[in-house]
């Protein structure tokens, strides 16, 4: 696992925003801009989806991304692919080293299956995703909530075909940075999960930053 830092200066970012734990965030990133997510407190799951800003039905595809690079894990060099084969973004820096795209996002219903039926009331990522796309008011619905990226999460697959949820490999201040290869809509749920140790049972804020390409 190689760690690749970025030379971009946060003071020169054109946009900075701290997403509190449990909140969604939706924002356009234009082609050529750089987009960084900072794990401010360490091991926070950042559930993320991307859409072609000109056609939301052309969206991030976990399977196409995995297949295109013949590797399950996302890191520097990974091209984030859409269902139509568009390169949406490319990961250009990564001080964490590995990110998951198989574990998906938590939901009221999947929490009922995974933990206990009475967990339905607990806040979950797919509710945040839905709230964000409803407020975005461009006709998006649950049909548009596809399988996502979990930045800073470590979900290894074993040779025997098992899926394991390992302790995080992220730390406070670790970040992942992407260059948008086309205009994209970014959708994040800063994960509120309290039922498993992915966040050390303590969901925390993350920061998003955007730079114009000229900042490089």
């Amino acid at each position, binding site marked *: 696992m190689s760690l690749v830092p970025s030379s971009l200066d946060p003071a020169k970012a054109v946009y900075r925003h701290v997403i509190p734990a449990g909140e969604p965030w939706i924002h356009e990133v234009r082609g050529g801009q750089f987009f960084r997510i900072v794990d401010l407190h360490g091991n926070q799951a950042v559930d993320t989806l991307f859409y072609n800003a000109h056609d939301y*039905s052309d969206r991030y595809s976990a399977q196409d991304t995995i297949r295109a690079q013949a590797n399950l894990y996302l890191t520097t060099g990974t091209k984030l692919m859409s269902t139509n084969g568009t390169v949406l973004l490319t990961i250009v820096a990564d001080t964490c080293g590995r990110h998951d795209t198989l*574990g998906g996002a938590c*939901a009221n219903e999947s929490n009922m299956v995974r933990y206990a039926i009475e967990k339905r009331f607990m806040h979950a990522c797919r509710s945040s995703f839905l709230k964000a796309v409803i407020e975005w008011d461009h006709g998006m619905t649950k049909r548009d909530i596809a399988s996502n990226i979990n930045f800073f999460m470590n979900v290894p697959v074993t040779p025997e075909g098992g899926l394991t949820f390992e302790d995080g490999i992220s730390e406070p201040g670790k970040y992942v940075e992407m260059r948008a290869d086309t205009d994209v809509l970014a959708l994040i749920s800063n994960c509120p999960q309290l039922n498993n140790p992915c966040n050390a049972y303590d969901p925390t804020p993350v920061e998003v930053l955007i730079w114009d390409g000229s900042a490089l």
Partner: protein
Amino acid sequence: MSESPILWEETVQPAASWSHVLKRGTSLRLIDVEGGANAGALFYNFECTAERYNMPDTLKAQHIARLTKGFVLYSDMGRVLCSITGDTVGWHDPIGGCSSAALVRAKYGEARYQEHRNRCYRNGHDSFLVELGKWGLGPRDLAANVNFFSRLDTAADGAITFHGGNSAAGASIELRAEMNVLAVLNTCPHPLDPSPTYDPKPVHLEIRRVAAPGPDDPCRVSRPENGRGFTLTERYFL
């Protein structure tokens, strides 16, 4: 596997598509006629197609990165769409996705209908879209798919490779529908199949009526998560 009488059967030709609403209480057996088949599949709750097969929920609820007997296919609503009640293969791929027109052209070149008639090269992505279109569904409904009969190997660094020879002639897998499930299939080759020639295989299908899962059903008791998944599925029909 169920040995009740076959209600009907048919063969999906190589690189062809198929769809059907599997009624709750029936089973679909897929048979790899020649060996080396791939059956790409998507599943929806026919009564509300916004509820659909969810790859991450299926994998994480059961801590698996492969599909075989005893596991189930979850929807995004915490319900079991289908249970895997029989399998002679041992590994079906939930991760590799489907091929696209660009991928097939780059790997195999072009074979148009004009020259090749029904042996033209088809791809998984377009085949899914056409079959979904017949049910009023479209690109927004294209979710992560299953690839029955195919297998990927994963290295410690996450690198994936196609596992050749996974499925022999006559191999089969049986799905029991736990809801009224729109199943959409195609037999296009797996996108990571390294074969230099475009060589899709047929898959034979058999539909049977089967008993409802009892309290000791192997899929229900294989994990505590699945017990809750069956409870939520049964509540849907109350």
